[in-house]
């Protein structure tokens, strides 16, 4: 299992090479943001704890305190 994580980690990092080569800062920033979010979720998943997800918390709030649900 760990091997698969390492393998996909290498591939994602390797996608940084071309933008660094031709110096596109915006792309590097976005890729780093994506990778950091991915790491956050990857680690939370590896440790088995739940992670914050916008959709989950939005719908939790809708169920508890708004009329917008069918409470089936």
């Amino acid at each position, binding site marked *: *299992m760990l*091997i*698969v994580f390492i*393998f996909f980690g*290498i591939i994602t990092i*390797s996608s940084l*090479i*071309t933008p660094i*080569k031709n110096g596109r800062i915006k792309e590097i920033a976005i890729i780093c943001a994506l990778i950091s979010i991915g790491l956050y979720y990857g680690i939370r998943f590896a440790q088995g704890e739940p992670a914050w997800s916008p959709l989950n918390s939005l719908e939790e709030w809708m169920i508890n305190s708004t009329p917008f649900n069918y409470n089936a």
Partner: protein
Amino acid sequence: MKKLLKILCAAVTLCVILLSLGGCWSADEISHKAIILGISVDFADTPEKYLVTAQIARPSQLKASSADGENAYINISSEGVGVQAALHGFETQLSREIYTGHMELIIFSEEIARSGLTPVLDYFYRSSEARFSTPVIIAEGRAADLLDIQADLEQMPVSSILGTMSNQDSDIIMSGTTMGDLLREMVTEHSAVTLALFRVNGKRAAMEKAAVIKGDKMIGSLTIDQKQYELLAGGEYDEGVQVCKIADGKVASFRIMKCVTKHNLKYENGQFSADISVNITGQISGITFGGEEYTIRAREDLEQILRDFITRGINDMFSATKEINADIIGFNEMLRRKYPRDSKSLLENWDDNYRNFPISVSVAATLTGTGAVRERVK
């Protein structure tokens, strides 16, 4: 461009190595699998435990002719609190992993059927390997004995039981009720379903009765004839033989080729009633009495005999089912579908109302031929 090429090649080779290392999680060799063909579940001697017996095929013996004593199967049994625990017990005895992907038969003993099937069936319909289309049967006495019968024409007892069921199915009586049908009936309340009831006499298994399951408990059994009339009344009758015993020594048997059944439910001034019309076409297949008068010219009397016999059969089948108040034809479903609102009150306690639910039966029989011979050989 050159750099990209290098990365591409590196990535591909890395992927190949890692995939082969990390993969093969859920791959298990066929030769490391114990292929289970049939499972029988009994109450174990120690209370609260089940004795599960599994029939496992031995492929290498299959090719060799079974004459040299080595049968092509082995029966393993183990005890456990539930079916899952018992199946897990097999792992300790067997050299291979158990594989239920090809399971073709599930047998429960009558005691378990009478005490309730849900705790036992639960494992089967949750597991991803079992199929809803696996037939379920009930065994009188110990279910494990059914797995030890002598499989004369087949290589394995399970396939010989399946063989008898499929002949019966096409010929007269038993449609192999699958796990899916059983589940569907158990889910709809107040409805009942019939399963084949096998009994071991000597070295062979014979199917003489049909167990009636209501909810998830077995509440009684029907004889083979009653079961046949239930099929006639329910409209699931393909073809078969109907033997009418008029008096001692005088028997007429007919070959039924087509049977069209219509149920129409009536609801007048608060009173529900059902009218079943059965239209049978058949052939004379054997007469053991009578002289000149019972030939083709006497067709009307033979049809009359067949009509009376079937009407009486269906009526006493309904009276039998009303006794143990199991609505195996499924009138409650028909009523709910036809009169969803008005039948609500009746269906509330359908168990008692079924007892005095008026069912009228009208049978029409036409005989189209007398087999290969036109006249009766004196």
